[in-house]
């Protein structure tokens, strides 16, 4: 009886260990923060997989108030491939909050997303798997 309990415990420990080691890990879609001289940009991608993506953008000034402006431009590029795709322009959902949809990031790897609002520009790195 004792032995069977020990064996069962050992099996459980082994399976749990294997699960911890072998469980596939993805990169979670985290908000990316970048600051320019006057503004603070927070970009959250919908996914970190390659393919059609969309970005949620919150742009505030240094004090945290929504940044004025009516047009944000997103310029995705992949420096390693020497390749850029067409810039995408989006209007605000509400002051300081933008949604940039239908961004075709078709290749996995390190992308550079340049975001500009009027004269302020930031470059946000984005790793896709």
């Amino acid at each position, binding site marked *: 009886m004792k032995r069977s309990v020990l064996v069962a415990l050992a099996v459980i420990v082994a399976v749990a260990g294997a699960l911890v080691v072998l469980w596939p890990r993805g990169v979670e879609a985290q908000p990316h923060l970048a600051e320019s001289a006057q503004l603070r940009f927070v970009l959250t991608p919908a996914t970190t997989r390659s393919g059609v993506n969309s970005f949620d953008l919150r742009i505030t000034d240094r004090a945290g108030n929504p940044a004025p402006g009516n047009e944000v431009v997103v310029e995705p590029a992949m420096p390693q491939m020497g390749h850029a795709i*067409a810039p995408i322009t989006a209007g605000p959902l509400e002051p300081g909050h933008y949604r940039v949809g239908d961004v075709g990031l078709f290749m996995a790897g390190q992308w550079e997303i340049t975001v500009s609002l009027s004269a302020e520009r930031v470059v946000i790195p984005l790793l896709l798997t």
Partner: protein
Amino acid sequence: MLLALGAVLGIAAPALADGAQSGADLHVAQTIGDRDLTVIIRRVAEVPGPVHVDVVTHAGSPPGEITLTARAAGAATSTVKVVLGAAPGFYSGVVQVDRPGPWELAVDEATIPFVVPALVSSPWENATYGGFVAAGLFLFAALAFAVFGRPRLALVPTAGLVAGIAVATTAALLSPSIPPVAAPGTQLDPTFDNVGDPYQRTSTVDFSRPPVNLVPSTVGDDLVLSLTDGSSGRPVDDLLVHDSAFMHLVVVSPSGQLRHLHPIRTAPGEYRARLRASEQGTHAIAAEIARRGGGVQLLRSSIDVSGTAARPDGGRADLRTDIREAGRPSTITAGFGRGDLQPWLGMLGHMIVVGPVSGSPATAPIWAHVHSMIPPTPGMPDKPDESVAAYGPDVPFTYSFPLPGKYLVWIQVERDYSVVTVPTVVEVPAGKGVSAK
């Protein structure tokens, strides 16, 4: 547990096999005499064995016969003649290789260096399989001891069994994180030694090489390009195939006609390409090359050509342009009507940008080569070859023109085995006070 490990191994093994050797097809565009050919050296499955070579001809290529010869260390091993028909398309030949190592494929007077990889299993694969085999043998030994009434002695092989499984599991689990070794052919100069023993580590960590000097000259109709090392002055004979050619040579005539040629290697450090029906005057030339060890270089020069004919670039496309001020990304989309474009040089389209032009293109400060990429197909790691005529019709390009002014732009795609060149002119406005970063 063992089944799970087997699954992990099954996934890990092919990824490792790809890591050390590039076992893919080699596509090389070659301007041989009056023909524009693409030579495809298919991956070598076994050594000694056959190497399948496809020669792709393009529209306007004269029919005739070419000779393919495989050579190792200067000695020819097999020769085959390939008859090229009048219709553009694929023509095949098979040559034989008898050992792994650095080889040369001679296509008439052009020589294409390539590496025949050795099939060598990696040390971590050996540890994994060896560990499992040892564990199996120890298991039998332990059983034998138990059956023949020596249960205490059976403990010894049991310990060996556990150790064998531990070694195999550790090697299998850690193998994906072992950094790849420097590959002969792309980072190291290939020799018979390092191709045969690819897992030997070298102390070199920086593989980059010095810049290259380009000296053009003309011999008859041929443009001869001499490449020498910028540090030693020796001939440069380590060009890699990048974007499907050893060298992308763009020649712009005084009147703004473009040619995109792929010179052939005729000797170490010597490349040549034929300039058919050239125009009189100073031609701007620019060569894109990649040396072994990484990094692409653009070599610009100019050359005086004596000639008479001016051949207009005849291609047409429906161009939609969205030109922004200098420093910001502009978009040019060429519509070609039907979706039957073929990949050319591994890309959907090429855009050559020269400017801002005031006098001769030879003095233009900016020279760029923009690509429109083929959308990747899931589950197809190899890039499609030219027989796949299924792309387009829209070919988009995005480029940030760095300076304001007038640019000469050419868009090139392939259709029906013929390269279509669409010339256009783009005016880029100056920045409107936006910080150009």
